[in-house]
């Protein structure tokens, strides 16, 4: 398998996941903004920018529903805007067209076509319709992946998606970590409850939480679910399990393993032995900061191991 092909597939996985995550984040932030008794206002939109590390590029503009939505969806100057992600995914897909099934290609192509000529995202309703469409195409893409041959092509796309997912979840929790801290929790505070719900919406885990804990929203339980519960697909533990699985599969096919395998397995083992109390004791922000650094290292190890060059 060509290194370029592997790199293109890996990045298709990452960009599609990023596009979907950003769409979910927008949706959840809109909801937060709309539900709050007073508009959550600048704070909610600024934190949305920070979650996708777009606050720097956004600069000194006033963060509000219109500006942030436009920037995260179509922003010409935002390399991680949803449109830019879909364009990058499509461009990669075109160059490795024969490594994808027709369904997988069409899902990417359709999503890109829908955003290609859009000049603005319109108001609340239109934005919600748009994010719903992007999530639907992303689901279509995932569905198409599941019907692909279980070969390296499949594994590299899945690997990219899982790596991206782990990174997004870590940043989501990190940006909102202060409201997850048990100290000084205003019990039953309206704004905070909405904030937690927002987080769960972003990772589509509102009902999953109830099934796992049969309990009202508790900050430490939300953190436990998103970091340590492997049965939760968007948790760090769940994404890590997927990374280990895909790397292991590729390793068996190619007959060799490398640094990326070792790093991923180490993380999986550590997560398995960690309790949420330890995480809070060490400091959630510090813990997630270390995870984000490790994510970068893991991405580099993958690129080096498969000679993405």
């Amino acid at each position, binding site marked *: *398998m*060509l*290194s*370029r092909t*592997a790199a293109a597939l890996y990045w298709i996985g990452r960009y599609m996941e990023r596009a979907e995550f950003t769409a979910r984040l927008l949706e959840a932030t809109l909801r937060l903004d709309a539900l709050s008794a007073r508009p959550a206002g600048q704070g909610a939109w600024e934190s949305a920018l920070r979650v996708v590390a777009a606050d720097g590029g956004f600069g000194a503009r006033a963060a509000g529903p219109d500006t942030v939505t436009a920037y995260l969806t179509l922003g010409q100057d935002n390399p991680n805007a949803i449109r830019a992600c879909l364009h990058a995914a499509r*461009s990669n897909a*075109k*160059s490795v*067209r*024969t490594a994808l099934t*027709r369904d997988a*290609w*069409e899902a990417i192509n359709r999503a890109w*076509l829908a955003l*290609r000529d859009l000049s603005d995202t319109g108001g609340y309703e239109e934005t919600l319709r748009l994010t719903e469409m992007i999530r639907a195409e992303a689901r279509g893409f995932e569905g198409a992946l599941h019907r692909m041959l279980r070969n*390296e092509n499949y594994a590299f796309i899945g690997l990219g998606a899982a790596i991206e997912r782990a990174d997004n979840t870590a940043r989501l929790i990190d940006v909102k970590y202060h409201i997850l801290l048990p100290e000084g929790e205003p019990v039953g505070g309206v704004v905070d409850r909405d904030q937690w719900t927002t987080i769960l919406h972003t990772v589509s885990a509102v009902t999953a939480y109830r099934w796992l804990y049969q309990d009202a929203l508790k900050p430490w339980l939300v953190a436990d679910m998103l970091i340590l519960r492997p049965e939760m697909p968007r948790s760090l533990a769940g994404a890590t399990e997927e990374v280990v699985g895909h790397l292991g599969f*590729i390793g068996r096919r*190619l*007959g*060799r393993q490398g640094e990326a395998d070792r790093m991923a397995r180490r993380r999986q083992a550590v997560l398995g032995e960690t309790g949420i109390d330890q995480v809070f004791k060490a400091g959630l922000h510090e813990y997630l900061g270390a995870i984000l650094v490790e994510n970068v290292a893991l991405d580099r190890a993958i690129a080096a191991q*498969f*000679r993405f*060059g």
Partner: protein
Amino acid sequence: MQRMRGRPRYGAMPVHPFDEIWGHEHNRAGRDGLEELARWIADTSTDELHRRQAAAEKAFRQLGITFAVYGQEEAAERIIPFDIVPRIFTHHEWEVLRAGLVQRVEAINAFLADIYGPQHILKDKVVPPELVLGNPQFRGHLHGQTPPHGVFAHICGIDLVRTGPTDFFVLEDNARTPSGVSYMLENREAMLRLCPEIFHRFDVSPVDRYPDQLRDTMRSVAPRGSAAEPVCVVLTPGHFNSAFYEHSFLADSMGVELVEPADLEVDDDVVWMRTVTGRVRVDVIYRRIDDDYIDPLEFRPDSLLGVPGLIAAYRAGNVTLVNAPGTGIADDKAIYSYMPEIVRYYAGGEAKLPNVETYRCREADALRYTLDNLDKLVVKLVDGSGGYGMLVGPTSTSEQIAEFRTALEAEPHRYIAQPTLALSTVPTLTEAGVRPRHVDFRPFVLTGADGTHIVPGGLTRVALREGSLVVNSSQGGGTKDSLILSPPRQTQSQSQGGQSQWQS
């Protein structure tokens, strides 16, 4: 389809061009032997034909059989119009063509081996030496270089036109990187799906062996000393290239890697491709990048498409390039007019497929004739393309002719002239029903270590506008399936046992 977009072809509209199915437009019963296809055309309603054609084009678009239009946005990916009414060649017609094509391509390879070798043909003054040696398509620095197994032009696309029942002419030889073969294959797939009854009524030779034959051809010319299973790849400039679909299609259907220049590296005159498990040595490269861009160290230093050191690896005999560098001299327009002499020189007999009559204005008699008949002729610059530097006498104003006359008189050696041809037509689906439209034909000829082979088929291009002789896809041209009939069977048992005798 870069090369196919090349040169618009013009000519005066003849009063009654030859129609390949009907003979002429008003005999809808069909020519001898083709009555059945004529009947199919007559019996199938226009609505039904339109429905099937729309289904085919939808399938092409979904598959992504598109070509990019240069200078337009990336989204401007178009499909080449597909015409549902097939063209048909009888087995006998094909056999005549096949013999002529084999002879011509063998001569092209012999010519290339000669001019990059002993240059007998120049010493014997059959072709003027300055025409070859001073030609930018002649890569002088590769003189003395024999490619592995001595084959230069592994893949040739020979453009043919027809003016009567047995009158075929070679319009152009494409010996560099001819494109369009994916249309031959995809058009057939569409026809099998949409018009299965045609294949019940006619015994059509299959074309789907082409990818296998291409792979066999590539394997056969692997450098000596390669592994038992040589590593073959298709080299594309990338997905922004207008013919990218074809590149990926061919790689996919041969089961070989589709590489971009960045996937290759040359180390100590050996070509490697970068894979997830490390470097893999490459033996045979079907390159879809022109000579000028293939190696910035040898040709254009500003080329971003090339693989530095590739030509050095070729010279060291460590890699086979398909086609070999330098084949452009064989399909050059200035050389074209000498092809009958070239074929005679190497084949020892007359060319079975004639050229379009060509007047070389560098010769005094030809120049005089051309100047006297400018209003009837097509005059072309030998080094022009894309319709530039071209006069179409019958459709030009007297001012244009006068202007061209001055240019021609100043530099006659740069021009050739040809009569305007009454190109044949084939019934074609139009808004107004099935009507005759002008066509040309490009079969693909493969040459490996074991000789020259042709899959019975080719690309038929059709000028969709009434009266137009321009078949180029950039100018409203479309494509058709080209059916080659299998030989008539004497008895069932014989045809089964004798298959290998007629498969090319």
